[in-house]
């Protein structure tokens, strides 16, 4: 059955055949994993185009931001984990309302860590420690309902009525969950990769972050400390592993599992490799991967160097590792408003005043030197 994903029409078996032919024809780059690490190629240009200071006061401020999202109407939503709640800001940065509060009851959060919009009027908030996803009305801030899931929560994205979760369910051995909010049904998709299932380090969840971007017919999944992305069909059946060449970012050393196991501290573990932090589809159909090279400080601050990679809409070409300039004072948080990247940072000014600042970045791909993505098709078992 033909499947359309990100502009590419393909049949799973046809893709395997095509790759085999290309391999025979010495066109290795098109299908085999790219073994050249740290290539020097021209990246996209990511330029700051605007900066916005979010309104805060002594009594109502963002203590510890852990998430940022932009609503379809352009409002900014920030998760504050210090006093658990979501704060909604107008596009000019003025504070509009607070949504939810700390606690464990309906409409309350223990540890909110992610949010996404189903539509103009509904926002989904992931509560990592409460093991729930809650839905709120964006017009009133009113709590609507919530749903619990078994597993370890990592990230969420939303498409219309669907909430996609990077969620490990070890009993089922799956890495992604889909909550159809209209039918209130849950599907557990995409087999948990062996390196997560087998490794104590990953099972310890120190590096478990999983990101998902989904459309009606395909899912793209990225895992912390793993170079390859997994492309799966809408039922979660793996189609191919995609290896995106490494430019400026650290990348992932080939023996990452061993090195992680030998690491003596979280600081060392986080510093070993790059981590995909977000996947997003641009209006052109291209995919953006936001990679972070994390430096975990002794005060448990996650400082990061950020790199942005574009994937062509057929996922065969990449424009890799455009640096995104951030202050590196505190952990940055990302969101996309259509094709614009937004980065939220808390900055301490020279006057010892903290401000929460959102920078907007335009992504210009005219400077790109496109390189091949390594495809390793997954041959379906009969």
């Amino acid at each position, binding site marked *: 059955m033909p499947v359309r994903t990100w502009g590419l029409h393909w049949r799973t078996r046809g893709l395997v055949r095509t790759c085999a032919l290309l391999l025979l024809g010495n066109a290795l780059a098109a299908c085999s994993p790219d073994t050249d690490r740290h290539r020097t190629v021209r990246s996209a240009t990511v330029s700051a185009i605007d900066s916005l200071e979010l309104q805060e006061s002594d009594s109502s401020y963002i*203590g510890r931001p852990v998430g940022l999202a932009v609503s379809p109407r352009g409002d900014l939503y920030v998760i504050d*984990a*210090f006093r658990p709640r979501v704060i909604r800001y107008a596009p000019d940065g003025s504070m509009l309302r607070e949504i939810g509060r*700390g606690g*464990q009851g309906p409409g309350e959060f*223990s540890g909110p860590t992610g949010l996404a919009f189903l539509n103009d009027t509904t926002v989904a908030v992931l509560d990592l*420690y409460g093991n729930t996803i809650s839905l709120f009305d964006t017009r009133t801030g009113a709590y609507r309902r919530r749903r619990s899931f078994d597993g370890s929560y990592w990230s969420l994205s939303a498409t219309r009525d669907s909430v996609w979760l990077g969620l490990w369910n070890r009993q089922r051995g799956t890495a992604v969950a889909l909550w159809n909010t209209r039918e209130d049904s849950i599907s557990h998709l995409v087999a948990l990769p062996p390196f997560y299932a087998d490794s104590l380090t990953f099972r310890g969840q120190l590096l478990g972050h999983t990101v998902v971007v989904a459309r009606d017919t395909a899912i793209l999944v990225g895992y912390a400390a793993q170079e390859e992305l997994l492309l799966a069909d809408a039922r979660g059946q793996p189609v191919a592993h995609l290896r995106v060449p490494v430019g400026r970012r650290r990348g992932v050393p080939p023996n990452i599992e061993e090195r992680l196991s030998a690491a003596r501290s979280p600081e060392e573990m986080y510093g070993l490799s790059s981590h995909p932090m977000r996947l997003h589809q641009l209006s052109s159909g291209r995919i953006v991967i936001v990679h972070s090279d994390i430096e975990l*400080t002794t005060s448990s601050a996650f400082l990061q160097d950020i790199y942005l990679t574009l994937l062509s809409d057929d996922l065969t070409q990449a424009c890799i590792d455009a640096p995104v300039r951030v202050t590196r004072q*505190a952990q940055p948080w990302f969101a996309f408003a259509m094709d614009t990247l937004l980065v939220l940072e808390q900055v301490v000014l020279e006057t010892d005043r*903290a401000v929460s600042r959102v920078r907007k970045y335009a992504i210009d791909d005219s400077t790109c030197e496109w390189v091949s993505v390594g495809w390793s098709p997954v041959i379906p078992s009969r």
Partner: protein
Amino acid sequence: MVAVLLFDPRLCLTCAQTLGDWVSARQSTPEHVRIVLSRSPTVEEERILVRLRLVPDGVLANDAYGMSREFLFRDGRLEVQRASDFTAGARLSPMVRTFIDSARIR
């Protein structure tokens, strides 16, 4: 009555969940809540404190290594003390929650 949090800044300032509850409680009942650090913060920790808008009420002169406890004082006398839970996802202890709720009522 006064509730005092003695907090070691070595214990994950950036992720200690209950710290936010203490700051909220101090905002709503400043005469009943104190936050004291068990040692002077480092430069990096000071930056984090600025971001959290957390100005401590005091700092112990001698480093009480790893010490994080909650105390309740009545008329200057210690009534209760217990270890504080700063693990991720932890909520304010029932002892402190009850005290703060009753302090609000008063």
